């Protein structure tokens, strides 16, 4: 439980932080797409008996870069580009799992999340990613500006393309690191709900970011405790608590 709590807090900080950009840029489907891309990587790791994280991270980063590249080079919408990579990665994952004997327990863990599955390696990876993310804090102002208006940011000579690729890669790694806690099926919600809840309460993007971090941690800690005491999958418990917070914020916002 201790590992799950430490890992959960680290991962929720990361997911909530990047979630504000995902929500404000209307990229909610990207979270889902990258999670399913990660599924392809995890399944390949299980098939070749290598720690799935080592395969899933580069696999998902490649998909994130691919999505950003296709979006940039074609007239296709972001959703279409994500949809293509989503299905290809999922199809590969299904084939890899089919070829792997006795996959059901492992697959269940990755699909729905389990607090028992959180290892010290996962915590180390989350901590490492948090350190990397801390070095990109100055980029919050670039990402916020281009989230508000991409063309204004480009016309003001910000390196928007470089920033977009970096953001996509960091979101991809965050998703992979969060998979064991929340599960592939629910990871998109883990990314989106704290930010969407914060959006209901905040009047500035700075406040939205800070609220999202607080809501992400609160939902994760409460969800993990419920998961532990009721013996239910951690991902589902966290998402349900976050959903309660979201609807409460909605009501509060409506009544103001």
């Amino acid at each position: 439980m201790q590992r799950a709590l430490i890992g959960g807090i680290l991962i929720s900080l990361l997911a909530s932080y990047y979630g504000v950009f995902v929500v404000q840029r209307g990229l909610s489907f990207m979270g889902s797409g990258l999670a399913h891309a990660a599924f392809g990587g995890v399944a390949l790791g299980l098939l070749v008996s290598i720690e799935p994280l080592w395969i899933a991270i580069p696999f998902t980063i490649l998909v994130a870069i691919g999505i950003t590249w296709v979006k940039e080079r074609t007239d296709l919408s972001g959703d279409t580009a994500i949809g293509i990579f989503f299905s290809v990665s999922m199809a590969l994952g299904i084939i890899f799992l089919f070829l792997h004997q006795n996959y059901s327990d492992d697959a269940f863990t990755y699909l729905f999340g389990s607090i028992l599955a959180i290892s010290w390696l996962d915590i180390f990876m989350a901590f490492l990613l948090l350190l990397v993310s801390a070095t990109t804090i100055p980029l919050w102002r670039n990402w916020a500006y281009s989230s508000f208006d991409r063309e204004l940011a480009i016309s003001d000579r910000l390196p928007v393309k470089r920033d977009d690729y970096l953001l996509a890669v960091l979101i991809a790694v965050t998703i992979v690191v969060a998979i064991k806690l929340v599960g592939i099926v629910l990871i998109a919600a883990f990314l989106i709900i704290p930010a969407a809840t914060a959006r209901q309460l905040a009047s500035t993007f700075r406040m939205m970011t800070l609220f999202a971090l607080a809501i992400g941690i609160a939902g994760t800690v409460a969800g993990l405790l419920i998961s532990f005491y009721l013996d239910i999958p951690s991902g589902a418990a966290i998402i349900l608590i976050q959903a309660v917070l979201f609807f409460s914020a909605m009501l509060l916002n409506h009544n103001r």
Partner: protein
Amino acid sequence: MAIVLEITNLSVRFADFFALQEVGFTVESGEFVAIVGPNGAGKSTLLRVLLNLVPNYQGQVNLFGRPLAQVSPDWLGYVPQFKTMDRRFPAQAIELVTTGLSRIWPWKVDSGSQQKAYAALQQVGAEHLAKRAIATLSGGELQRVCLARSIVREPRLIMLDEPATGIDTVGESDMYNLLEAYQAKSGATLLMITHDWHAATHHADKVLLLNRRQISYGSPQDALNEQNLRTAFGHIGHEHRLKSRYDNNV
């Protein structure tokens, strides 16, 4: 007078389609130039070239005697169409104005920037909107905030994309008064896209009439004569309206 903008043989091609073809004109310091043309005439493409948003173009574009890549964004003010802005973005008007100063989104508006932003808002009569969420501003109010955002950096050239679209008549008149007052005070050059040749006739010193190709460039009376207007707008089925609009204008 010094030349601010010099464009020679500018063409922009998207696949096998020319959005702009062989456009060339010069703008002198302190002029108010309106870019007029029907929908799809390449007006926005021209502005996007100047804003560094179209990397692949042919021809020569010099701003302040330099190639675009060497032009400091601090010299340029830009007022986008407010309808294209994401008004769901959680932001206060003053934050939006300070992006004009820092060219980046503020984590927190410092006191120096706040002072300058308030001064810019005051110039456009919008200081009371500083702490309002942009989602709650009307079209005219947001347009003023965007204008404050562009003048806060004291630019030498202000580019405006259809600034009167979606604003009522009083708001439109206010906006032109503000622009002209700012221009008189600062000596800035103005470049404005509009589909409204009536507004161009009354407010601009010069008009560039476009329909992918340059139809005319000069004083509003010369550039917007009936023949030029027919060439620019006539082929798209507006002949029956052109005569009466033109007669009203002159």
